[in-house]
């Protein structure tokens, strides 16, 4: 039984190490930033996830000490990784990409990230003050449908 746990922990540790290396190798190797963003996510999910699972199993099996800190760390990383990726992509698209020449043109509205912030509270208040106006409501709905969320 001990040997089974040992093999399992060793395999998880190796998976963690290999995926951490693959993430960084991809970040060095890939040609441009938007594809470089993709590689380190493997290091975040599989690399650190494997390491955390390995340590949880190791301390539970060999030190008879079950700790849930690892779950806390992995949950925090899984929650924050998409946010950082989104911020990096947004910063890149605003600084280094020409929206007219380099991006495909969507139907109707342009790219939501380049538009001025849209004051939903003021629009709602105007609609409430004017009373129910079907045409305005319809227009507001169409506006919202064409806009990607900021």
């Amino acid at each position, binding site marked *: 039984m001990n040997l089974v746990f040992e093999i399992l*922990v*060793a395999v998880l540790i190796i998976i*963690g*190490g290999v995926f951490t290396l693959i993430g960084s190798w991809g970040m*060095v190797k890939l040609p441009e930033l938007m594809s470089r963003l993709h590689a380190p996510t493997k290091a975040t999910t599989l*690399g650190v996830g494997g390491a955390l699972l390995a340590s949880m199993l*190791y301390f539970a099996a060999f030190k008879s000490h079950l700790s849930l800190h690892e779950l806390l*760390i992995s949950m925090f990383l899984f929650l924050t990784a998409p946010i*950082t990726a989104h*911020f990096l992509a947004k910063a890149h698209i605003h600084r280094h990409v020409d929206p007219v020449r380099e991006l495909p043109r969507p139907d109707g509205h342009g790219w939501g990230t380049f538009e001025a912030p849209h004051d939903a509270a003021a629009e709602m208040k105007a609609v409430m003050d004017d009373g129910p106006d079907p045409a305005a409501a319809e227009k507001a709905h169409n506006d919202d449908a064409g806009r990607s969320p900021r």
Partner: protein
Amino acid sequence: MIDHALSFALGATSLALLLNLWRLVHGPSVIDRVLAVDTMVINMIALIIFYGIHEGTPVYFEAALILAMFGFVSTVAFCRFVLRGDIIE
């Protein structure tokens, strides 16, 4: 067996950190450097966890947790500074 796996994983993670350092020094734009720092923080968390298994104490998890939080906050702050020129408006 775990010792061999750990020495392999520590070596792989250190190599990954060196690759991140190459991207940090070389990376053509600011965003590349921010991405490199973010990945470095992730790899440091993995390194600390491997070292904690190696030492056999659960003390290092607090360090890993704090590093995860600081990494997230610093990346968001960097991106916000690059985007808006200001962090707290």
